[in-house]
């Protein structure tokens, strides 16, 4: 089989049965944003905005470089953004503006401890 034939048969995530490294036992405490990202995925599914199958395909369509270099929840949130653009629920400029707004909010001097 040629290299290109192999590419047509397997998307980047379709790795079942391929060779790989020994298992390394690994786990990590989820970062707060990762947990929020997971909860967002569930809420998007509950409201039938993005279901699990769309999420999987959305991650696949990030392409092998992003799939390889982004972490698990980084792939999820980028995939959600792409799917929301495709569904014309959000526009990339909306997200850019909102990310600037959220970043600016965090750059403000910290409010008093009680607030």
């Amino acid at each position, binding site marked *: 089989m040629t290299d290109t034939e192999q590419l047509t048969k397997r998307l980047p*995530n*379709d*790795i*079942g*049965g*391929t*060779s*790989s*490294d*020994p*298992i*390394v*036992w*690994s*786990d*990590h405490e*989820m*970062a*707060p*944003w990762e*947990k*929020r*990202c*997971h*909860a*967002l995925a*569930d*809420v*998007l*599914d*509950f*409201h039938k*905005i993005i*279901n*699990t*199958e769309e999420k*999987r395909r959305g*991650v696949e369509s990030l392409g092998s470089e992003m799939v390889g270099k*982004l972490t*698990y*929840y*980084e792939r999820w*949130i*980028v995939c*959600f*953004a792409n799917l*929301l653009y495709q569904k014309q*629920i*959000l526009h990339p400029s*909306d*997200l850019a503006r*909102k*990310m600037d*707004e*959220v*970043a600016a*909010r*965090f*750059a403000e001097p910290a409010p008093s401890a009680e607030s």
Partner: protein
Amino acid sequence: MSAVHDHSHDHNHPHAEITQDGGPGYYDLMTAAVTELLVERGLFEAGEICRQIDVLDSRTPALGAKAVARAWMDPDFKRRLLADGRVGCEELGISFYDDTQLIVLENTERVHNLIVCTLCSCYPRPVLGLPPDWYKLKPYRARAISEPRAVLAEFGAQIPDDVEVRVSDSTAIVRYLVLPRRPAGTEQFSESELANLVTRDTMIGVAVIDPPGAPRQ
């Protein structure tokens, strides 16, 4: 009001993560921004994210262990659990917050079951919580279906050659849970004592339950 800031209760998800330069990271910002935009558009309420975090935090392998221990104690329950995992778990008050179905796979003298999701990370989250990282990484996903005995050996689980190893590959809507074998010497155990023997890894199938008092393999 924002999705990031309006958490009024005090568990461990207060703000966007702070990175070394003092601000939240790029993907953290993106998550907060997507959430806020969808809330502003009225697609869901900010509180739903908080509530779902609470649901996620409430799911641990202790729930699966409870179902396993009950199945060991109560043959009628076991029959119902094997017939429909979701209905069986719901009977114990374990709610399913998603549309997934659950198939419970019973280990026997002749069959050892192992679960995997080769395409991504599908996992019986309502009964086990979130999967460990190794379950989501390439080595396990790639190799579990083609060389399960080698994978099991790397986890320290030796399955005799005359026991069939059966691997089940999860999907977006069908999830699996392994019902491990009840170890010898537990005849007098209470249900909660039994549940204490059942670990996450034994319900994924990468470990077997040692008889009480046996040295670790």
